[in-house]
């Protein structure tokens, strides 16, 4: 009797056989041996680990560790449970920040407590399916990968363990992003220096939760038990949840994003699977790298920007008015009904010149 776990592991093992491991090039090890090394402790989104915007010194090796954790997470106020697959326990996985021509050295750990094989595909990396071929780890294994961050920009990373496992792992939460900054920092369309006072990473996820005959979301013992039903919903291409930071209202209320009038905020927005269209209600995108790639001049003064499924973009905005801002996917059905809404709480002085209520609501005057 083949258990579901064995079957799932078998699928992954099959994928690994196809992916014959090429030997690591010995020469490149020598290239990085004398480079300075930096060990970064990643932080949970929407926050981002401390980093330089303009690099001091030359390229270095930046060490990251991601521990894969399969765990149930609650994705809405009704208590709907997703058997999530996560990097470092969060959906999305943490944002990594390096500079161009740094080397990313990732230790990927799949603890024995997990049940599935996983890997990681960096859209920022070149070759081997983004590293996916070289990073497949079964429960109880770890692997170390190094890649050179040759291109600047914001890039998605995600699990891609082969075949039908790929979309399933991704819509189970297994994606994140990396930002490769130009060594001399961000520039506007004329090459002038840009700077941010705060950075937030908003990872957007689409979930496909099966329902019972009454329309309630079903609960399952494990990810494997949910697989067949979830696949049915996935094939309909209609998500039941579209959320920021892993759950409906994860970035509202007590967890709303903060800023002050006059501060410039960089919002990195990733969507590993499906198109999105971020919009800051009452604000704008001053400089937006819609495709996320900093070698292209930023678009200016955008109202809404487009994040292609499988990419991450970056928007820079200086807040000019205090108040409560909603940051939404401006398919408003997805924003309001499915959950893709975050809030910014912005403190500071109100500018009457920018906006004022001339006449408050009152009965309509007869002419």
């Amino acid at each position, binding site marked *: 009797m083949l258990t579901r776990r064995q079957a799932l592991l078998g699928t992954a093992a099959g994928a690994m056989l196809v992916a014959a491991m090429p030997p690591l090039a010995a020469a490149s090890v020598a290239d990085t041996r004398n480079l300075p090394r930096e060990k970064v402790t990643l932080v949970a989104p929407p926050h981002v680990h401390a980093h330089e915007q303009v690099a001091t010194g030359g390229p270095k090796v930046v060490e990251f560790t991601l521990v894969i954790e399969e765990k149930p997470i609650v994705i809405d106020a*009704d208590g709907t449970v997703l058997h999530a697959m996560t990097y470092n326990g969060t959906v999305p996985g943490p944002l990594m920040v390096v500079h161009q021509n740094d080397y990313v050295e990732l230790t990927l750990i799949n603890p024995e407590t997990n049940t599935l094989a996983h890997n990681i595909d960096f859209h920022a990396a070149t070759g081997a399916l983004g590293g996916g071929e070289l990073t497949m780890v079964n429960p109880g294994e770890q692997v170390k990968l190094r890649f050179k961050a040759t291109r600047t920009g914001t890039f998605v990373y995600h699990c891609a363990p082969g075949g039908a496992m790929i979309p399933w792992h991704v819509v189970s939460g297994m994606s994140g992003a990396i930002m490769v900054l130009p060594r001399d920092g961000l520039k506007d369309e004329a090459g002038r220096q840009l700077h941010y006072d705060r950075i937030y990473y908003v990872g957007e996820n689409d979930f496909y939760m099966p329902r019972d005959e009454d329309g*309630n979301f079903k609960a399952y013992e494990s990810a494997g038990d949910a697989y067949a039903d979830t696949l049915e919903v996935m094939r309909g291409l209609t998500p039941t949840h579209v959320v920021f930071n892993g759950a409906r209202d994860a970035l509202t*209320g*007590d967890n709303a994003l903060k800023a002050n009038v006059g501060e410039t905020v960089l919002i990195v927005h990733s969507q590993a699977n499906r198109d999105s269209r971020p919009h800051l209600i009452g604000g704008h995108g001053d400089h937006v790298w819609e495709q996320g790639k900093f070698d292209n001049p930023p678009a200016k003064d955008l109202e809404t920007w487009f994040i292609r499924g499988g990419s991450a973009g970056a928007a820079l905005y200086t807040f000019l008015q*205090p108040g*409560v801002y909603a940051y939404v996917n401006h398919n408003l059905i997805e924003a309001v009904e499915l959950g893709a809404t975050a809030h910014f*709480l912005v403190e500071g002085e109100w500018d009457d010149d920018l906006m004022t209520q001339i006449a408050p609501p009152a009965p309509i005057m007869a002419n």
Partner: protein
Amino acid sequence: MKTKLFEVAGGALALLAVPAAIVLTDAPADAGRAAMPAPAATVTLPAGSVSWPAAGEYLVGGRPVAAPRIKVTLRQPLEIMAYQVGATDYLRCVADGACRPLDPRTPRAAGMPVTGVSYDDATAYAAWYSRGTGESWRLPTDAEWAYAAGERFGGETSVEADDPGNPAVAWLRRYREEAALRRAPDPAPKPAGHFGPNANGIYDMAGNVWEWTSTCYGRTVLSADRSKVESVVDNCGAHAVEGRHRTYMTNFIRDGASGGCAVGTPPDNLGFRLVREPRPLLSLQGLRGWLRSAQARLAGPDARTLS
């Protein structure tokens, strides 16, 4: 001009205590229809007065201000259901063809309060229940609900501008207050009695099922010293909903949590309880008495009056 507006407003304020859904039929129950629910357990509160922040939005000088505390006198005892209307009771109305079916996801076991019901559903039930019992049942006014809720009355977060030059200060404060109210969501409806009685012996008020009232949402403009009403615009397409805090919902909304909220923090669930009129028919004289008894006055620390 001001006087004329005041008369309009005074009438609107008086309506705060006037039933909006009185059923004036005295037709007996049709014996061939589905069985009526067992007689509802009720609590009768003595006549008295309640001073509470009136429902609706208030403006002074064009700026939102806290709702004035209004004193409403109930001249008659208030007989109100001790429990919210139950799911099985509502289903009898559905079986009778007088109420809309519940959403399949709505809990319907015996002993559960009915949830997932709109203002329209609640008033349809009240009409059916009144027909069946030969009595007159209706939703409570917001003032009556506050009177019955006693120590459990929650009110709402204040929209009053903390800094007249910066409206965002109040927006941000209110956002944080509303976030605090929602900190521990527990939306699954609980069996009747779960949240216990209040000091008046009325069960489950301010639990996780909010209750429809017959009070319309409205915007009232007050004079600069807040002693006079300058204008009132009522929007009876939305009604006050009472619970842990007050909010306003559009009449046809059944699921408070997932949207359709006119103003304020969405409630977990929408249900209702009814009050019983002392007599099924109100004589003209009785109606005049009602209106007199419902004379609303501004009260509270400032002790201003409208007249």
